[in-house]
């Protein structure tokens, strides 16, 4: 794409096709010959893992859609029928339900990697923004997918989340009913969620192509954050990274299989095995684990802020937590990409990761429960989530912008080759 094409059609048919549609050339230049920094570590394997999981989700989902019935009277039973009576339905449904969780495990690690190595910085802002759009669509697809089995958590999760839209002034009620297609979450809602749940993965697949395109124009970032300068810095993607990504994919699949075959319900919630009942509210409505940090941010806003009600404030904070990612490339102005060479940012990033995990913990708990109690003094979870939410936003809006000016970065290597070969790159000939 951005580099000189090294593809040489050898057979007659290859030459014939190459003159008409150079698709083999595109594949060769993108995934065989593509010059890739030689120092990529295992944190860089999650892109490949995500591509595999997108395929797993689409394939298993297409088969599930052949058996699923999107109707409030039959949806719950049809999912159980898949698990009981469809040949290997328990396997396909188990892969799809657990696959969603593993998709998010991979995407979070992929995003944290990008945050740590500064992969969002110039010239990769568009690459990063496409990634955030993919993440947003993944969340929408996962949320609507979780509604489809029409269990108690499906129904009440859908009710809680769609009701958030009602917090918007003036237009909120109207939009809410437009989303529902009714005056409450019901059959119309289930039908449109099924339709959109089937649509979104294909939009994601399209965006993944753009994501890879936007990756291949500037090329990969790498753990040093120093851009590729010469041939000695890179290796062809195949076989070096096909084999490294391949190894990581198989290990990730091994863990995935452990869940699918031995703990198929561990990541789910028992209440979702109870059919949806609009008359019975579960004692404790919680989203799937991958939404818990955002759920904690939503519930952390417990106070009115001027004309903004606490509910609207929570909704704005929740969407703002993702929205801030879009402008991150312009918030962090430090010229140093990799936090390996940013002594203060490194620690702030570590605390950021802990804050995200902590928010996940808060999201799973009842806000009034106590984190700890000591001699009559205790801290409820809502306070912890407020502290962590404050840090989450401060990291992007204060810490990174300020550090760009006050932090003194450590010395960076001359080039990737120099960092790999040590202090005397000239002494060793490249390859």
């Amino acid at each position: 794409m951005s580099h000189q094409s090294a593809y040489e059609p050898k057979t007659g048919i290859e030459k014939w096709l190459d003159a008409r549609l150079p698709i083999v050339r595109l594949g060769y230049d993108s995934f065989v010959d593509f010059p890739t920094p030689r120092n990529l570590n295992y944190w860089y394997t999650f892109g490949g893992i995500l591509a595999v999981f997108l395929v797993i989700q689409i394939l298993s989902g297409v088969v599930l859609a052949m058996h699923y019935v999107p109707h409030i009277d039959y949806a719950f039973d049809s999912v159980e029928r898949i698990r009981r009576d469809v040949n290997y339905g328990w396997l396909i449904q188990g892969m799809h339900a657990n696959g969603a969780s593993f998709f998010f495990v991979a995407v979070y690690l992929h995003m944290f990697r990008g945050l740590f190595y500064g992969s969002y910085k110039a010239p990769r802002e568009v690459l990063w923004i496409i990634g955030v759009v993919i993440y947003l669509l993944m969340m929408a697809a996962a949320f609507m997918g979780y509604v489809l089995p029409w269990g108690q958590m499906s129904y009440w999760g859908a009710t809680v989340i769609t009701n958030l839209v009602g917090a918007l002034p003036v237009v909120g009620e109207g939009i809410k009913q437009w989303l529902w297609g009714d005056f409450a979450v019901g059959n119309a809602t289930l039908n449109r969620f099924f339709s959109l749940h089937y649509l979104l993965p294909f939009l994601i697949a399209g965006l993944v192509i753009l994501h890879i395109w936007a990756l291949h124009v500037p090329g990969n970032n790498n753990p040093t954050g120093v851009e590729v300068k010469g041939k000695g810095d890179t290796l062809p993607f195949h076989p070096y990274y096909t084999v490294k990504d391949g190894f990581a994919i198989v290990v990730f699949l091994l863990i995935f299989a452990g869940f699918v075959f031995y703990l198929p319900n561990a990541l789910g919630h028992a209440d979702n095995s109870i059919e949806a009942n609009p008359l019975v509210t579960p004692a404790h409505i919680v989203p799937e684990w991958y939404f818990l940090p955002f759920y904690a941010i939503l519930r952390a806003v417990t106070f009115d802020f001027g004309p903004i009600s606490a509910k609207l404030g929570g909704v704005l904070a929740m969407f703002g937590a993702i929205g801030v990612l879009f402008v991150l490339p312009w918030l962090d102005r430090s010229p140093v990409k990799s936090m390996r060479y940013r002594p203060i940012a490194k620690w702030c990033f570590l605390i950021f990761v802990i804050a995200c995990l902590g928010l996940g913990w808060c999201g799973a708990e009842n806000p009034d429960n106590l984190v700890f109690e000591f001699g009559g003094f205790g801290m409820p979870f809502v306070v912890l989530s407020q502290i962590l939410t404050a840090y989450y936003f401060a990291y992007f809006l204060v810490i990174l912008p300020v550090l760009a000016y006050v932090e003194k970065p450590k010395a960076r290597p001359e080039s990737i080759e120099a960092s790999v070969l040590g202090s005397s790159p000239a002494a060793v000939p490249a390859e």
Partner: protein
Amino acid sequence: MKRFIATFAALAALATPALAAEGETHAPEAYNWSWEGPFGTFDDEQLQRGFQVYQEVCASCHSMDLLSFRNLGQPGGPFEYLPDLEHEGELINYPNPNDNPVVIDIASRYTYTAIDPETGEEIERQGIPADRFPNPFANRAQAAASNGGAVPPDFSVIVKARSGGAEYIRSLLLGYDSEVPADITLLPGQHYNPYFAGGVLAMGPQLFDGAVSYTGDTPQTAEQYATDVAAFLAWASEPHMEQRKRMGLGVMIFLLIFSILMWLAYRQLWANVKH
């Protein structure tokens, strides 16, 4: 992990005596089930006894709408293997549950309403293995009316639908002899059970020593009944568990070998490349 959480919750409850009101819900009692662990399988005889307890006790109120009689004889089901009457101590496998004499016999004891295709009139016919378990009530309203307003939950996926699973079911069934705490007042038709969230439920104690007659020499105690029926319900919630674990072993071994090969290929390829 669940036990760890339960222990942790118990410790947390001890550490905060102010919160531990007397009506606090108890964590289910731990029990060592035959199907635990990656190689654990259901005990067919236990499933058969559990089905008997369900049929004779629970089925008068609790439906199992998602189960058909054929499920009882499917691979991994309670009656897949039957004792061979001609050869002492041997078992016969019935790969097709529709041919399974026990399944046919169980189904035939029920009658179903059908439409006579010739006349279009309603007729009564004998149950067949393909029939669903009969629902004890005609509709939800009748179920609620017969049970003081509380609809008895369907048992098809009850073990998956309760945190604590089979241990919760077993503990609940055996938890009725606890003393009612002072802060709980029971209305007529209500019962106290510390394993139930909130402590108060409409279902009274159901299992008593000797209430169900087992054919073998298994103890006929309430505890044994509760354990057996919890096992049966665990199977009903996950009827393909054994197949799942069996296939899982093959997949895990395959992926493990595959990952080792990938690792070796990676080492080989990168051996002379500085990175």
